[in-house]
């Protein structure tokens, strides 16, 4: 099949970028989207042009490193799917595909399609953990956790940190990401000990990173590769309100 690509090219953080046209003839519809970019890059390299920089690593939808806007949709046309799991069979022969980086004020573009998502790491560092040192743990079965709670905590913990929620949010809000971690921990008995600190610190950090407000449009849940529920955001709000009320 044939494709017309319009790809965001930007030399570095401080340079203005623009969409550049590329044409690919003869690509296989069973190719993954990233393999299509590999094919393009191979052509670019051989004509001594700089290949398109894009983030990717595991290519099986779990590391969370890949992610671009494809035709104005985070991770492309399939819902709940990472860019690396997207295949060309989802596109029409001869289609024009616009590829842009994930954008938000908190995710500055580093080059081409690569953005800086370190803000997410700083949010986790501010409180997204149980404060347990190596060696302190009690016997695992001494903390029974019912099946539903464990499964529900897993649903929240499944976040891969790709940033699609932020990119797809008109407000550039990181509420889904932050709340997934807060509710993962809040659901489990292990995380209950420091729940007030955690939510206050993480929300504080989230605000410091220049993410926007959540206005509950729920777009994030639709595009999230792990289908993280927006109810996590409600739980974060609950935890936050609770912490504020109980704060001494």
């Amino acid at each position, binding site marked *: 099949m044939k494709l017309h690509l319009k790809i965001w090219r930007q030399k570095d953080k401080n340079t203005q970028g623009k969409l550049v046209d590329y044409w690919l003839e003869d690509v296989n519809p069973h190719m993954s989207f990233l393999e299509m970019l590999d094919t393009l890059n191979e052509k670019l390299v051989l004509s001594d042009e700089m290949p398109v920089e894009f983030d990717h690593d595991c290519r099986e939808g779990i590391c969370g490193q890949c992610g671009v806007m494809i035709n*104005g949709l985070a991770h492309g046309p399939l819902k709940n799917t990472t860019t690396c799991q997207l295949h060309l069979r989802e596109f029409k022969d001869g289609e024009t595909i616009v590829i842009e980086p994930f954008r938000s*004020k908190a995710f500055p573009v580093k080059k081409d399609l690569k953005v800086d998502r370190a803000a997410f790491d700083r949010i986790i560092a501010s409180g997204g953990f149980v404060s347990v040192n190596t060696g302190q743990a009690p016997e695992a079965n001494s903390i029974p956790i019912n099946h539903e709670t464990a499964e529900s905590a897993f649903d929240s913990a499944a976040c891969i940190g790709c940033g699609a929620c932020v990119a797809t949010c*008109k*407000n*550039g809000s990181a509420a889904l990401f932050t709340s997934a971690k807060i509710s993962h921990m809040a659901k489990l008995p292990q995380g209950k000990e420091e729940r007030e600190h955690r939510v206050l610190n993480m929300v504080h950090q989230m605000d410091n990173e*220049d993410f926007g407000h959540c*206005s509950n*449009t729920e777009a994030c849940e639709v595009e999230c590769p792990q289908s993280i529920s927006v109810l996590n955001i409600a739980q974060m709000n609950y935890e936050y*309100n609770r912490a504020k009320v109980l704060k001494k």
Partner: protein
Amino acid sequence: MQSLTRKILMCLTGLFLCFFLIIHLLGNLQLFLPAKTAQLQFNAYSHFLSGNLFIKMVSYVLYASIILHALYALVITMKNKQSGGSYKTDNRGRASKWYSRNMGMLGTVLLVFLIIHFKNFWYEYKFGVLPMDANGNKDLYTLVVTTYQEGWYVVIYVIAMIALGYHLLHGFFSAIRTLGVFHPKFVRWIRYFGIGYSLMISLGFAIIPVYVYFLNAK
């Protein structure tokens, strides 16, 4: 101020306004009474509201709510505009409802409407010169009915109530979420309640001018 605190302010002021809308609608239902009864009763009701100290205090909360709600909406929207990315090709809309993305726009429509609405009734009642009815109360009823005789005003009113309906549809549910209700069962119930509430309020308010308009057109 943290983002979630700002959201809580939006939520609390919004919910208060939601509550107010119910009371306001209940009062307005008197307009459906036969003209004679409606006139006296509606005017007496208005008089009671303007004279009562408790109601007076509530009305200050109401003004404050409207102002804070609009002010924080402005602050939040400006911050969100800054934070959100913009794309050359943007199809992100497929993942959410249009009214959830345009609360600011709907809110602005409502604010403009409120100004007209205040000017027409609240200002006239408070600072204008109104004739008295048989019981010696200011005759707000006649003012209302006369106003609703104007077709263009009824149209504005109905459009504003459609905007209100959508604003409430998202706003009420969003407020409850900001409060932190996360149990899936209650979330579902509240969502249904919110839809019913929004429909009831917007239809209820919209139908009154239409009713009055057609009643007197005959």
